[in-house]
C-alpha cells in the first residue's frame, strides 16, 4: 500500500467510494443466488421525531429462515456525530453498507474540513442503495432509514428509502423491516407533534413490542437475559444511546401496564 496521490484529472475528490474504485477495490456480487430463503431477513426499526430531535430504535433479532441466528444484533448505528442509520434486510450487505456510509461521511468531513449537510448525507445513502440494486434483485436487498439533527434549522429530520435508492423524507416518523407495519400503527396512534424525549422512548418501546408480538422475525425485549432494543436519541448534543438500565425500568412499567389492561378486560 503506497500513498494514494493522484494527478488532478484522476483525483477522486472527497468521496471515499470514488477512492475505492480508483485504487481497485471491488465488492460486486457476481453469482446468482437461487434460494432466497437462506438469507437473513426481518427486523423492525422505527425513528420518531420529538420536540428536541429524533429518536431511533431497533430490535435485536436476526433470523435465517425459521431459525433465530442472533439475539443481540445491533441494527441502529451512529452515521456521524449528528445522524444515525438503521438497517433492515440482508445482514451482510447491510453491515457493509453502514460501515462504508460511516467512512464516507467521516472521509468527506476530514478532506473538506466541514461535514456534509443532512440532505447531502441522505443522498449519499441513496446512491449507495442504487449501487446495491443488482444485489437487491438477487435477494440481498437492504432498506435503511436515516435520521439526523440539523443544526441549521435546530430540528430532527427523517428519511425513508426503497431498494432502488428512492429517498423519501417523512415529517413525524418512519419505520422499516418486516414488523414495520405493526410498529408504525402504534406510533401513528400515539404520536403528537409536542411529544418529548421520555414520551418518544415509551412510544418506540411499545411499537417494537407490538411488532415483536405480530412478526416472528422481530425480537421483543428479553427481561430474563437483559436484552433490550437499541434506542438512541439525536439532538443538539449529537448521537447518544439510551442506557439499558433506563430501558429496563421503562419496559417493566410498560409490561405492568399491559398486564393490568389485560386483567381488567377479563
Amino acid at each position, binding site marked *: *500500500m*503506497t*500513498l*494514494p*496521490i493522484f494527478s488532478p484529472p484522476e483525483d477522486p475528490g472527497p468521496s*471515499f467510494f470514488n*477512492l*475505492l474504485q480508483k*485504487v481497485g*477495490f471491488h465488492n460486486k456480487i457476481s453469482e446468482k443466488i437461487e434460494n432466497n430463503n437462506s438469507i437473513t431477513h426481518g427486523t423492525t426499526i422505527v425513528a420518531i421525531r420529538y420536540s428536541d430531535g429524533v429518536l431511533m430504535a431497533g430490535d435485536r433479532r436476526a433470523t435465517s429462515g425459521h431459525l433465530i441466528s442472533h439475539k443481540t444484533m445491533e441494527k441502529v448505528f451512529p452515521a456521524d456525530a449528528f445522524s444515525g442509520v438503521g438497517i433492515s434486510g440482508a445482514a451482510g450487505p447491510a453491515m457493509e453498507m453502514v*460501515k*462504508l456510509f460511516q*467512512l464516507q461521511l*467521516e*472521509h468527506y468531513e*476530514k*478532506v473538506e*474540513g466541514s461535514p456534509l449537510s443532512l440532505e447531502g448525507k441522505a443522498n449519499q445513502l441513496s446512491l449507495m442503495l442504487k449501487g446495491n440494486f443488482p444485489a437487491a434483485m438477487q435477494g440481498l436487498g437492504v432498506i435503511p432509514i436515516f435520521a439526523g439533527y440539523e443544526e441549521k434549522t435546530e430540528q430532527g429530520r427523517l428519511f425513508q428509502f426503497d431498494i432502488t435508492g428512492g429517498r423519501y423524507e417523512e415529517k413525524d416518523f418512519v419505520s422499516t423491516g418486516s414488523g414495520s407495519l405493526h410498529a408504525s400503527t402504534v406510533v401513528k396512534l400515539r404520536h403528537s407533534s409536542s411529544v418529548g424525549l421520555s414520551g418518544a422512548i415509551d412510544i418506540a418501546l411499545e411499537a417494537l413490542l407490538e411488532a415483536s408480538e405480530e412478526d416472528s422475525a422481530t425480537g421483543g425485549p428479553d427481561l430474563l437475559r437483559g436484552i433490550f432494543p437499541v434506542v438512541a436519541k439525536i439532538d443538539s448534543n449529537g448521537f447518544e444511546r439510551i442506557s439499558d438500565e433506563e430501558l429496563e425500568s421503562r419496559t417493566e412499567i410498560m409490561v405492568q401496564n399491559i398486564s393490568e389492561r389485560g386483567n381488567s378486560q377479563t
Partner: protein
Amino acid sequence: MTMPMYVSPEQLMKDRADYARKGISRGRAAVACTYSEGVLLCAENPSKTLRKAGEIYDKIGFMGVGKYSEFDQLRIAGIRHADLKGYSFSRDDVDARWLANQYAQILGQYFTHEMKPLEVEMIVAEIGDYAEDDQLFHLLYDGTVMDTSSFVVIGGEAELIRDRIQENWKAGTSLKESIKLTTEALSGPDKSFSSNELEVALLSRGNGRRAFTRIEGDELNELLA
C-alpha cells in the same frame, strides 16, 4: 554542437535545498508540542479557511507549512491512505510511523527526481493511551524524518522560536500553560496574538474515538487570557 552543461551533484542538491528552504522560510511558523492530555497544534494563521492543521485519523493529526497547495495535497493523500488502511484492515492498524515513512518517501522522490522539490515542512502527530506514547514526526522537504516526544517548530524563523520554547520547556504541562508557551514563542516578546490570528487544534485523550478538535472563538480567548 552544444554539450549539456555539467553540474556537480553536490551543487545540484545544494541548489534544490536552498530553493526549498527559501520557499518554506517565507511562510509563518507552526508548532506542535505534547501536553498532559495529548498534543497541541498551534500556528500563526489569520485565515479561517486555508488551514495548516488537520485531522488524519482517530489519533493522528497533521500540520504543514510552506506552499499551501503542496502540503494540502499531502494532507489529503494521508487521509486517503489512513481511511483505506482502516477499511481494509482495522482501525487499530493505522499508525503515524507508517504514514510518516510514506510522506518521507514522496518528499525524497520529489527532491531527487522532479523538476523542483516540494516546498513544505510537515508534522505528523499521534497520541497514545498514555502521555509517554505520544509521538511527533518532523518531516523536511528532502524526506528527512525525525521523531520526538516534546515539541517541533516548522516554517519561517523556526530556529528562533525553537530557542524560545526550549528555554521554558517542561513536559506534561496543562493545556493553558502549553498554549501560553507556544503563542508567546510564536509572537516573540514585542507583540502578542489575538485569537483570530491563531489556528489552534488538539489531539486530546479526552475526546473519545476522534481525538482531533479545533479550539476557536470564545474558548480560545479564555485559554489565551
